[in-house]
């Protein structure tokens, strides 16, 4: 079987990262922003797995990191959704533009 070169995988992960970043900057809906963050996290995961596989095939450090990130991402999603729900209760909106009281 012909192997996929590392650069292809990195290309995918970079694309994924910037798609996530673009979403994070442009969307005002907080759930969408959360999804964008997940995209970015997963692009990092792909990077870790790919580097692990291509550069140090005998080791598992990158894979462990990936599992950590997935765990943390799950916790982060739970926290973020809790914040969003609370925000919705108090502001009746999940638009990031509507919650700008925390300023000077």
């Amino acid at each position: 079987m012909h192997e996929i070169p590392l650069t292809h995988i990195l290309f995918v992960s970079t694309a994924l990262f910037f798609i996530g970043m673009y979403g994070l900057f442009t969307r005002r809906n907080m759930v969408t922003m959360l999804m964008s963050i997940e995209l970015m996290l997963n692009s990092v995961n792909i990077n870790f797995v790919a580097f692990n596989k291509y550069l140090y095939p005998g080791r598992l450090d990158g894979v462990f990191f990936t599992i950590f990130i997935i765990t943390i991402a799950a916790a982060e999603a739970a926290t973020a959704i809790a914040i969003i729900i609370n925000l919705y209760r108090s502001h009746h909106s999940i638009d990031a533009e509507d919650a700008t009281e925390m300023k000077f």
Partner: protein
Amino acid sequence: MSYSSYILLIPLLPLASFVLLGLGGRHHFKRAAGMIATVLLGVSAALALYTAYRYFSTDVHQPLVVVRYTWLQFSPSLSIEMGVLLDPISVMMLVIVTVVSLMVHLFSIGYMKGEERVSTYFAFLGLFTFSMLGLVLSSNIFQIYIFWELVGLSSYLLIGFYYDRPSAVAAAKKAFIVTRFADLGFLVGILMLSFYTQTLDFHTLIERMAGMHTLTIALVLIFIGGAGKSAMFPLHIWLPDAMEGPTPVSALIHAATMVVAGVYLVARLFPVFAADAVVMHLIAWVGAISAVLAAVMACTQTDIKRVLAYSTMSQIGYMMLALGASGYTASMFHLFTHAFFKSLLFLCAGVIIHAVHSNEIKDMGGLRKGMPLTHMAFLIACLAIAGIPPFSGFFSKEEILSTALGYDKLIYGIALVTSGITAFYMFRLYFSIFWSRETRSVHGEGGASMKIPLVILSAGALLAGFVPFSRFVTPDGRPFASAIHAGAAILPVSLALAGILLAYSLYYRQSERPASIARAFGGLYRAAYRKFYIDEVYLFVTRGVLFNLVAKPIAWTDRHVVDGLVNGTASATARISARIKGLQSGRVQNYLLYFFGGVLALVIIFIYAT
């Protein structure tokens, strides 16, 4: 019984009186305040007399440090100690301070009756007595400085006792500031002395100074401190104004005890001063000038207490003069006798003021029938201060004059003239108060508490001169015999008699003669009446020169440069923060942008900068 077992009680009992009356006097012992303070002080005075009896019953009077306690230990070689030093002059002062203070306490019971803040008054008297006793018992120069300041404080409190009178407040402030100014010199002098000798203890200091070259500047500075407290020219301006305080206070503080602290200080360090002829010369001349200047000013004053204040200054001038002329015993002797007759004069003035409700001589006159006891006491005190034998002032003044004769002819002349003037102004006071007009009746002399002190102090003024003083108080603790030569006494006594006769001819009856003589002297009279314009000179120097040339530029610098720097920093911060506070917009996505911008910047730095 050793000294150390009870000696601390002597100063601590008045302190107890201060604490007790100061804390609870207003509510609990309003009526008994005077009695409590007097009894405590009576015990203290009895202990002091007992100490004196024991101390002087030995043949050679060695200085003893009976209590020693390290108060502050800075380093192994530098510590501040608190101690009690007994030597002839401290024991003598112990007796003077407690006895005069007891008399004043007793007198005040009658004098201050009905006053609103009588317990506060007695509390302050207790504080003063404590500080003064601490001062005289000090065993090192730093301790004396501490009590020196405490004495200044209690003097301030007592001068300003009638704080609802603006003049009393001003006088208290003046006394405080002038003496504080002098104390600055004292403090610098102490620091210089202790820097060179590496000790604060009197005994060690004197020992170490003996082998060193003299420290003229340090000694002059210490003398300035003493001159300020003792109201010596030109730092005397506070003393006449200090008469705003209650009269018994003037008797205690501004006649018998506090104002002689300067003399006591010089006497305490006498071996050090005596080694430096320049400083001794300065002391003698300052004393002589103060004596004659104050005597001349006293002749023109019309306020009875001010006359007495100037006479105090003049007599302290005598003591300083004697110290400067190395007449240690003579000076201390005069201090001793002066304490009796001057406090007696002030207490008599208190009785008179109490009866006529005025300080002005012109409101008095013809009082001899109305107050016979006061009349006699005043006469005794006047004869004593004028130096008429056999009253106490005669003996001490003769000693001073004979010392001065051996020192400098000019100073002797000044002292002689001053003693004539002294007799004149004291009898001017006496005749104007008790004779001058037809007799009139006044309502009494006050109760027994006001009369007893007069009797006791009169006995002191009468008899103190017969104390064989040179057997007790000498620079080295060894007695020597002194005798007064009748021949030398003729001139001063006849001068004093001439002064009395002059006063008699002018003031025995009311006449126009004093006024016409005053007119004849014109400028001199006016100058003396205006206290030789010394107050005006001070005002010019402080208000005109110091205020305009030093204080105002400093205030300007403070307001515009120092404050300007601080305010400028604050307003610059405020302006910058107003500009950049927009960065904190409250929008999550703006913050994200900054975050990624920061990460990007870090990445660029790490890639390209390393």
